């Protein structure tokens, strides 16, 4: 771990700051999706699909489908915003814009650039998912103050999915190749991680797989926070899993991206 991080420095903040500046320059287009997405989801799935569905049984309690689903879309947002940032967006900066090359001509080292990108991906997830949370709160679907846990949760989970994105980017040769992990990894995770239905209704073998997926743990945790059920079972285990996976994937992302960038 030390050897992987030994060149990283606080200068990675400059890379993070660069990405933030771009984000703020384009704030109109950047803020629109997280503001509008929850409304669309709530109407389509909550009111539309939800009206066909009876209440959901979740962890021994009964709640409306809308209340069940709302935290799921926050969890999904954390994954999508960070993963997309460090796959497509980082790839564009690295490959098409040669932004990393430009930065590497300054006192920053490769490790700073990778770490900056990683943290920025996570930051974007924090911003977007918490905007969504506020929108859901306006629709009366959020329990305070336990929902504040979503802020640190989105940070850790953001690092996890950012790192996952960078690992994918490090082995991707051209931008269309991102479709493969998208359909094999991200889309299944999006659908089967307890986001739109409780994983408990899955057959046993699928349930085991579902609990290996990081998003299952993230949505489990976000749901506990948003519903205000902080004593749900296995929360500590999920936190541990997410933190560990975030650390392992970050180390892997640094190692692989370094190999990719230094030839």
């Amino acid at each position, binding site marked *: 771990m030390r050897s992987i991080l030994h060149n990283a420095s606080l*200068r990675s903040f*400059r890379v993070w*700051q*660069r990405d933030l*500046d*771009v984000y703020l*320059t384009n704030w109109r287009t950047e803020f629109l999706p997280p503001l509008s997405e929850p409304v669309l989801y709530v109407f389509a799935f909550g009111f539309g699909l939800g009206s066909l569905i009876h209440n959901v049984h979740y962890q021994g309690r009964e709640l409306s489908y809308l209340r069940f689903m709302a935290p799921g879309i926050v969890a999904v947002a954390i994954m999508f915003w960070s993963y997309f940032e460090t796959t497509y967006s980082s790839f564009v900066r690295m490959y098409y*814009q*040669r*932004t990393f*090359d*430009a*930065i*590497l*001509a*300054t*006192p*920053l*080292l490769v490790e700073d650039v990778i770490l900056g990108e990683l943290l920025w991906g996570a930051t974007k997830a924090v911003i977007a998912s918490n905007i969504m949370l506020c929108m859901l709160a306006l629709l009366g679907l959020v329990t305070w103050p336990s929902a504040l846990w979503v802020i640190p949760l989105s940070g850790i989970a953001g690092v996890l999915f950012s790192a996952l994105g960078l690992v994918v980017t490090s082995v991707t040769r051209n931008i269309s190749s991102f479709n493969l992990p998208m359909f094999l990894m991200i889309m299944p995770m999006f659908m089967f991680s307890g986001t739109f239905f409780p994983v408990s209704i899955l057959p046993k073998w699928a349930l085991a797989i579902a609990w290996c997926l990081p998003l299952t743990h993230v949505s489990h945790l976000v749901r506990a926070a948003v519903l205000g059920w902080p004593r749900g079972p296995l929360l500590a285990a999920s936190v541990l899993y997410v933190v560990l996976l975030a650390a392992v994937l970050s180390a892997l992302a640094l190692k692989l991206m370094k190999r990719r960038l*230094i*030839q």
Partner: protein
Amino acid sequence: MKPAAIIARELTKRYGELEAVRGVSFEVGSGEVVGFLGPNGAGKTTTVRMLSCFLPPTAGTASIHGLAVRKRPRDVKRLIGVCPQEDNLDPDFNVLKNLLVYGRYFGLPSRTVRGRALELLEFVALSDKSRAPIQALSGGMKRRLILARALLNEPRVLILDEPTTGLDPQARHAIWTRVRGLRAHGTTVLLTTHCMEEATQLCDRVVVMDDGQILLEGAPLALVEREVGRTVVEAWNYGEEFMEFMRALKGRLEEVGDRLYFYPQEGDHIERLLEERFPQQERLMRRATLEDVFLKLTGRALRD
């Protein structure tokens, strides 16, 4: 020679089987302007990228003002300014913001950066474009902005990788004027180029590379005189008789496609001689240039 700004010893870069740079050693004196010439694939850019800490050398050492590129990359990069071959301006920001953000990477205080950025935009004649998006700049403007960006940290050593490739003559001269200005200022400059005119105009010394090795180095004009002499006779639409006549003269004769090149050992009377014997022969007598040296050393075969 003044104290060396750049020292490279047996610098080597291998990619598997391919040896891109094969143990080159050279020095660049402080305040000197040195040009690296060579065909594509000669190893110029790889050498430059090792000096600017982009690529770790496979073997050998390099240092800039006494700082080893491998051990102290951050300090080396603080001392140098780099103009890369390709345009890597940040398309997400406008002209001025490009410089401001770049200055932050050096950890310079924002007020200092702003002041320098405005001065440098003036220097490269882009002041009226400071709010323009990068996409709106012409190729020449982009190169000038990249030059300004490379100067933001007030580098002691400036590394220019093909600074004028693909530019029109006006844009090229604009860059040259500025590089000469920097040279007058005492900045050490290492540049790579395909343009012999550029090397002649700017460089105190040129280094010719091919196949990952240094073939030759020297002051441009002295090098021309030493390697090919002062004059060249080019002839075309010539017959066997003319060819025979030329063969008998002292000098180097080269036939390339439909053209004959003759590099006489002593050039003073050859024009008179040709005028007497072959007054009708289509020919051109001109001063030898660095391009003649270059082609002599690296051959005329196409490189990819």
